[in-house]
């Protein structure tokens, strides 16, 4: 089977997955107690008013009807209107989504750019001081609460040293205009260098805070995977053939060691794309995490459904990309 067919089939498989997830989410949020109409109207709402609001929100239809009504529109990315703000769910999500993606990709870039070399170094100098430092560093990264780290970063680099802004995504006076919602890209598109720099400055601290866990994982996985590859016979062969050490490590060993790293990164992308609540809260980053928390508290069904649907879609796409990358990294893998 060639790779295009494989991709096509995987896409077709995404349909039942999405349907399944949407049914699950729909059932879950409708079965947990908490009636949005009652929540909104307490305590002045008379039973009649609650009933009228339920009718208005379409909550009185049988659940199956509600689900199909929702699904019909969701196919065209119309997730209805938010119960608490009255705006369309897709407009609520889209700006937040860009913020989350921008932050997640930045954090992952840090994880890759810093994590892979560190992992390689640790593997090469196994059981040396550098190795121990790398392990401690990565253990620390997994263990430090993001919330605390975020506040400390703000305290040191923003509040005390004043190098970077405390929180937010952009300064209001930056003259930023929204084109795609990705501020770095938008700033370049409108040619506003000041806004670009401003957006980068705002991005640094949250990206660093968010990168600690993926970074730590990348270091650990790269190290152990590299150790395994380095002990293989073909490494000895390569050395015996007189290939320079650097080339052996980065061209022959690393490529083979990357598969588990890619797997881990794939999972991390998937979870980061759903929005990272703690980091977003500390840095006032207007992403999906804060949106979903607010909407769960308000029982804002349309928003919850929209966000989860989108997050599932992204997870599916990311998994697909990861699988295709396997084939690229290891030509023996064929679909």
């Amino acid at each position: 089977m060639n790779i295009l067919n494989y991709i096509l089939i995987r896409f077709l498989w995404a349909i039942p997955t999405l349907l399944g997830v949407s049914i699950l989410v729909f059932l879950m949020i409708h079965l947990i107690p908490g009636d949005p109409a009652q929540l909104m109207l307490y305590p002045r709402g008379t039973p009649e008013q609650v009933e009228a609001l339920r009718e208005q929100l379409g909550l009185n239809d049988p659940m199956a009807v509600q689900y199909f009504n929702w699904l019909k529109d969701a196919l065209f990315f119309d997730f209805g209107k938010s119960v608490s703000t009255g705006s369309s769910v897709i407009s609520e999500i889209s700006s937040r989504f860009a913020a989350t993606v921008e932050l997640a990709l930045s954090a992952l870039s840090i994880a890759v750019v810093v994590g892979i070399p560190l992992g390689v170094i640790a593997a090469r100098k196994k059981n040396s001081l550098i190795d121990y430092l790398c392990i401690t560093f990565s253990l620390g990264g997994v263990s430090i609460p993001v919330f605390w780290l975020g506040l400390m970063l703000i305290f040191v680099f923003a509040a005390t040293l004043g190098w970077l802004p405390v929180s937010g995504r952009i300064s209001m006076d930056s003259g930023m205009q929204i084109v795609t919602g990705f501020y770095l890209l938008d700033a370049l598109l409108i040619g506003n260098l000041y806004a670009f720099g401003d957006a980068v400055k705002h991005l640094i601290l949250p990206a660093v805070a968010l990168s600690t866990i993926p970074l730590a994982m990348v270091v650990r996985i790269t190290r152990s995977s590299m150790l395994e590859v380095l002990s293989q016979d073909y490494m000895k062969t390569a050395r015996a053939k007189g290939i320079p050490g650097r080339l052996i490590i980065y061209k022959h060993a690393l490529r083979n060691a990357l598969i588990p790293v890619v797997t881990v990164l794939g999972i991390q992308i998937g979870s980061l794309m759903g929005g990272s609540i703690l980091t977003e809260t500390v840095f006032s980053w207007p992403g999906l995490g804060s949106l979903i928390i607010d909407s769960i508290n308000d029982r804002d069904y349309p928003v919850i459904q929209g966000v989860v649907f989108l997050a599932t879609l992204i997870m599916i796409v990311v998994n697909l990309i990861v699988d295709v990358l396997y084939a690229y990294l290891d030509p023996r893998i064929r679909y």
Partner: protein
Amino acid sequence: MFKCKRFFMVMLSTLLILSGCVKGKELEGGNDLTIARSTDAEMIDPGHAMAEGDIDVVFHLFDGLVQFKNRDLEVEPALATDWDVSEDGKTWTFQLRKGVKFHDGTDFNADAVVHSFKRILDKDHKFYGLIKGNSYLDYLLGDIIEDVVKMNDYEVKFELKRKFAPFLTYMGYYSQFVVSPAALEKYGEDFINHPVGTGPFKFKRWKKGEYLELTANEDYWGEKPKIDSLVFKVVPESSTRLMELQNGSVDAIKNIDPKQLETIEKNDELKALSVPGANTFFMSINTEKEPFDDVKVRQALNHAVNTKRIVENIYEGDGTRAINFMPPTVFSFDKNAGPYRYDPDQAKALLQEAGYEDGFKVKLNTFEGARTYVSQPVQAAELIASDLKKIGLDVEIETNEWAKHADIMDNGKHELSLTGWFDVPYPSNFLKTLALEGSRTKYHPEDLQEKAKKALATYDEEKQLKLYQELQQGLHEGAPIVPIAHSNYSAAVRSDVKGFVLDNLGVVRAHKASKK
């Protein structure tokens, strides 16, 4: 491949260096006021706004026919210059201010008032249901207003179904503010993103989840704002908010953690504001369930809970002990209608009288997360449980997130439950709406309900006072709740900010604010 990478890196660094050299458009004079809050607004249409985050904004964009002169809710003219009430108390006639314009340039007149009310209250009105969702106006006055009639361009008449004492007070409250009918016509359901009123500030832009910016209304009919623009910034985490303020990147912050007050007070550049809030945190008792249908048991619970300890430990000085349902700042508050003295022995004696000397099993419901009236409900529940154990009760605590917690209470599935209330500081809102109707206590004695109704139909202040005090006394004796505390509303500003007001609803009033 490597060349490409290198090129990219060089480009990126160049961009960054260049961006460092380019200066932003510094705003002249920097005469803006930025307020950091924990949440964003959701809905800034006065007819549909519900949350604190909305009300902050609505008060700056829109005006009512009257406005509050002070925290005691005394009213003074705003969009109406004069008014009178008919002899039967059921017809209110307002003379409207002439020459006032909406932010979109259209005239404010009687038509605008009629449209603003009828779009919410009259099912046949062309704007009815244009914006979906519930309405505070409908709650407050939906059952009271019979009709709103334009007499001429600058005179409008409200016909009420019955006498209703809070009517004029309510007219100064945000949900009764007037919106531009031309804007409703023009934007339709998108009015929520283009709100147009007559207020001291105009809507400029709103980046949801980030900030909302208003600019001064140069043509305002009243005192013009001294600042050029007013920005509401969303900063969910309280420590981050404080650092923004210390840093000077914002001028004011709302929703302060009590633990931060000390830091703020020690800093000369900052000033803390704290006002007693019109809210009540209490434990509601489900009076329909045994053994809580016995008033002695309810009184025993009141004697058993050491509210002073809760106020000291949970509120840390940023709140006051509750005497009864009513916050002490509200008109007619009777300091003699409560509280029950903390006395475990008395509590035990009362339990014995009621026939429960061996105690009983009880479930105490509480919720996660802070609400206006309490910051740590779970810890509060633990303190209460330890008090109740002292009088021999076997307490189990159940914690849920708010929506589920509210659902349990609204369906009467609880026995004891922590909850609270904040509202317009008008007595009937606490004594009638909360205590006798919406309460999660199922407590509806007829004589008290009658009194509450009578008070609403009484325009004479002294008679009102007497009725409301009797109500408080009755509620105190019936003990359907254990009143615990009223939290303060707090904010902090940089010391160069003047005229920034936080009212006892916790709402920001920055109309007259200025920066030195």
